[in-house]
């Protein structure tokens, strides 16, 4: 049974696209058939983060408008053969995505893949609403920072009221993914810590991705971080999160300030 997952946040720049690529690649590495879908019409970037930007011919809007078949718009990843990308269009037409069109594409994707991962645009408007509408699961990407937490709370409200599941009286499974977490600054009370955020949002935590240079390097190279540096701390956090999404029980350790890997990694940035 296919699962549709939306990666959302409300706020921009918190790591939705990075997380979509990393989780998609991590799930595909376990042998699942995965498609990552870019819903950010007009400002697509998932193709760039996935390293497929030179290969885009057709996109989601072409499929919805009947100019291309779904199979023609899907771009197979060159590194993992169970991973595909459906790019967004660069059109400026706000109404290019229709509810019916998206519903049709999602139904077809469900029949072809084990996981359909929708990368939501920032904001709470049409694109974001359509990205979340068909979801069974939601990963809410949040930075330990006041405006991000507030916007995540808004999004949680929308997930519980405006989605298909909500309208049928069912619940979307919501998971909090804390990104750009700096244990040193959290320990010094300069940054909200994990418990603060969990207390406020009260949804289950699926992972904590530490702030890391590996993430920037991965997007420079056009690779999900789970492929570019699989042994790095963020890649491991994403891989564990992917296993939890698949229903596995994996212990979650909160990165703490200690003399060790994190001390070395973050110690220098404290000045």
């Amino acid at each position, binding site marked *: 049974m296919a699962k549709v997952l939306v990666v959302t946040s409300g706020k921009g720049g918190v790591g939705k696209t990075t997380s979509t690529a990393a989780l998609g690649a991590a799930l595909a590495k376990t042998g699942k058939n995965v498609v990552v879908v870019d819903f950010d019409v007009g400002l697509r970037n998932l193709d760039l983060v996935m390293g497929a*930007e*030179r290969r885009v*011919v057709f996109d989601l809007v072409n499929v919805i408008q009947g100019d291309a078949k779904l199979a*023609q718009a899907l771009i197979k990843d060159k*590194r993992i053969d169970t991973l595909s990308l459906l790019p967004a269009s660069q059109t400026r037409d706000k109404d290019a995505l229709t509810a019916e069109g998206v519903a049709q594409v999602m139904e077809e994707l469900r029949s072809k893949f084990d996981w359909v991962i929708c990368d939501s645009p920032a904001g709470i408007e049409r694109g974001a609403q359509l990205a979340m509408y068909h979801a069974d699961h939601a990963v809410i990407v949040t930075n330990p920072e006041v405006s991000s937490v507030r916007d995540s709370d808004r999004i949680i409200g929308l997930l519980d009221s405006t989605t298909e599941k909500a309208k049928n009286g069912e619940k979307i499974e919501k998971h909090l993914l804390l990104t750009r977490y700096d244990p040193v600054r959290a320990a010094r009370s300069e940054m909200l810590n994990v418990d603060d955020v969990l207390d406020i949002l009260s949804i289950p935590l699926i992972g904590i991705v530490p702030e890391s240079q590996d993430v920037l390097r991965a997007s420079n*190279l*056009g*690779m999900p971080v789970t492929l570019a540096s699989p042994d790095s701390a963020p890649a491991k956090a994403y891989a564990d999160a992917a296993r939890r999404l698949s229903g596995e029980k994996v212990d979650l350790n909160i990165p703490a300030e200690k003399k060790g890997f994190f001390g070395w990694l973050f110690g220098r940035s404290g000045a």
Partner: protein
Amino acid sequence: MSFLASFFGRKGSAPVARDRLQILLAHERADRGEGGSDLLVQLQKEIMEVIRRHISVDQDKVQVKLDRQESCSMLEIDIEVPGLEKKSADKNG
């Protein structure tokens, strides 16, 4: 992947990012100029129209691949052409 990692080293990912962006933006800026849509996508459309004038092609059996490079791009259109015998036997095909 490990070969890429060792090739670019720990410090050298920004030049890759710059090269990728330069190629991508050159294409995207050209698309936004006169005529609007991507030349290669337009070419692909017209080539398909010409082919359809002569044979009936099943949209599902057409694969289009594109690779935009700095100095040249590759457009690859893969069409499964129905056999002539089968076509005359099956008029709905």
